[in-house]
């Protein structure tokens, strides 16, 4: 057991720290879901790209640094510590991009990858449907064979950044006559194409973080199909594996949150006797635990172990922890807990309420925690599976 960094890792870290110190905006950017904020975040992503930090986990041949897991984790740690802007192109960099790298043809990689890196194209995931949430295999959006491609009809929902996206990675049903998990195809579609309509959905924290997408006889050329028709499920699962992996579950993120909670408690202490410091310490121990757990997992993965379904344990743990941290923060505001940040008497330092509501989504996105518990109990613990539709 040795927690020291190699010289190479130390050098990488030192250079990164210097760059971040020189480049991270001193004031937070405007919220990424506003027009001005979105452009500011896009510009920031471009700066990251120019410095070579855009997607260090991508292979070098595709514009990345081919960074190993440990280096990726180092990057994420330093990035959070520096308070650098939210990475808005996550879906392109971590989901669509790796999918194109793993399953796309060289021609497709040529066409799409560079523009993801430079942020010329924004990508969004179009998997879920009104009738296919937790039960993703229930996808009904159809893709009917036509000359040179497919004609798509249907509806997607929860498409994050759908209203900003240029491209969508879409799960469609090409063959309704075979068992549900088969007959699905993974296609890339342009939001500007005929027959594609995006409608933003307002979330409970006021953001339009995601959208509905309606397809009405929208055409997808064969060139925009990933791998073969019928491979959709396999590729979608690979994409979602990336979502559950290194993803949002970065220990330093929660380290930042618990520190903010402490600062909030110090502030609230002057006015309320509700602050339970012991409860905050308990959350602190959970953040520490997540650091240690994460490092152990990272070490195992670096040694070549495929943690597979055990990734659900991490997601369940950090999402519950995140929700608890923000919940505790709201409660210690006492009678002022209901006030939004604009209220003169509010104790909210800026975005606590908004992030409180968003933290509750953590138990839902990337697979609800109920589904995660099913996965853990069935795939990790070997308990009997839920009764399923064939």
């Amino acid at each position, binding site marked *: *057991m040795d927690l020291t960094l190699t010289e190479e890792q130390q050098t990488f870290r030192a250079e990164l720290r210097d760059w971040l110190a020189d480049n991270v905006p001193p004031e937070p950017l405007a919220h990424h879901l506003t027009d001005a904020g979105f452009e500011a975040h896009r510009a920031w992503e471009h700066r990251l790209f120019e410095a070579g930090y855009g997607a260090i986990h991508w292979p070098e041949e595709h514009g990345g640094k081919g960074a190993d897991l440990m280096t990726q984790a180092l990057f994420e740690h330093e990035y959070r510590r520096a308070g650098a802007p939210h990475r808005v192109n996550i879906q392109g960099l971590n989901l669509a991009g790796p999918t194109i790298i793993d399953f796309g043809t060289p021609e497709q990689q040529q066409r799409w990858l560079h523009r993801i890196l430079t942020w010329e194209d924004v990508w969004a995931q179009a998997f879920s449907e009104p009738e296919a949430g937790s039960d993703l295999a229930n996808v009904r959006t159809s893709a009917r064979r036509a000359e040179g491609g497919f004609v798509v009809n249907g509806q997607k929902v929860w498409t994050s950044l759908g209203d900003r996206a240029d491209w969508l990675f879409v799960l469609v049903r090409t063959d309704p006559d075979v068992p549900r998990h088969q007959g699905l195809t993974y296609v890339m579609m342009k939001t500007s194409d005929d027959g594609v309509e995006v409608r933003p959905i307002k979330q409970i924290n006021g953001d339009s973080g995601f959208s509905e997408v309606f397809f009405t006889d929208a055409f997808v050329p064969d060139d925009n199909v990933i791998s073969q028709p019928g491979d959709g499920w396999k590729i979608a699962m690979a994409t979602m594996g990336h979502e559950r992996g290194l993803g949002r579950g970065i220990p330093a993120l929660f380290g930042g949150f618990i520190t903010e909670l402490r600062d909030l408690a110090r502030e609230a202490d002057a006015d309320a006797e509700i602050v339970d410091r012991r409860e905050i310490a*308990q959350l602190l121990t959970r*953040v*520490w635990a997540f650091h*240690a757990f994460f*490092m152990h997992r990272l*070490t195992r993965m670096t040694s070549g172990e495929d943690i597979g379904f055990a990734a659900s*344990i991490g997601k369940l743990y950090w999402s519950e922890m995140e929700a608890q941290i923000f919940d505790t923060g709201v409660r210690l505001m006492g009678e002022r807990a209901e006030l939004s940040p604009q209220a003169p008497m509010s104790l909210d330092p800026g975005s606590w309420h908004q992030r409180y509501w968003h933290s509750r989504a953590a138990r839902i996105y990337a697979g609800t925690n109920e589904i995660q518990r099913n996965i853990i109990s069935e795939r990790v613990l070997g*308990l009997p599976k839920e009764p399923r539709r064939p």
Partner: protein
Amino acid sequence: MYFDFTDDQLALAHAARDMFTGRFTAEHLRGCWDRKDGHDAEHWSELGAMGLLGLLVPEDHGGMGMTDVEAVLVLEQAGYAGVPEPLLDAIVAGPLLAAARNAELRDSWLPRLATGDAIVALQLNGAPLVVAADHADVLLTQLEGGDCVAVSGDRLRLERQASMDQSRTVFSVEFDPGDAVPLEAPDEAVQAAWDRAVVSTAAMLNGVSWGMFDMSLTYAKEREQFGRLIGSFQAIKHKLADMWTLVDTVRPTAWYAAYSLANRLEDQTQAASVAKAAAGRVERQVNREALQCHGGIGFTWEHNLHLWMKRGVALEHSYGQAEVHEDRLAEGFFAGEIADGPAIFD
């Protein structure tokens, strides 16, 4: 950056598990409960022969010369298997004795501790209860000022305190100050002994939680009701998923604390408190849910679950229950003295 165990360390853990589960059988544990005594000379000398008692004793004094990282693995297994011997006390006492500047004391006790010829009892920070004091050849304790002293076993006045864990013999202890021989151990070693006791107990607790979880999982895969396994009902599946998540995510906290202690990092005391607080909270929850998973049968004296539940309650409250450590961590965190995570990447 390698936060995992070597093959040798894992082999040690496996060997420990084999020995513990093989020799400390349910029958043996029940015997301990009947006798109201967890200590057995034969089993104790086997632990000595395996080198486990002297795990942290320097090799030149007859020990294995290993570190807290190995110790934490062994103690997890001891907790898992329900080992009732004062193994933890031996492991913690080793380095403390080794640090004693009182050479005569150190040289006379250390080799015998390692072989098992001598049993050392421990009383740190004024703890009211001393484990296995009746079997102790020597007690290591602290005077009011904090100085560490040794008192010969036959000079102790003991009052037995019956424990709900009937394999634990615990006592309140008195002795004449004149019988206390100073160890002359540096403050650093005394602090480390406390941290070590805290981390070691956390590791054992995690083993206890793990053991209760495994029992529950096994039961869920065997017990049928309504024509199917109870483990096929979502309520039970989700309980077990939560229990496993707790166990899987708490164990690394003790590993980190052991690493910090072994490498004398600045956060060793904080890491120990984190590990103990987390271990205690997890054990409480797993304890509760394990009984739920077992239903009525888990509430019988005959079933082994309560042996682990009661061991869990005992260990939870030893060397500082969760609340005690959380209060300390809160004080440090609010004073800006504790970081929001272990010093892993920093």
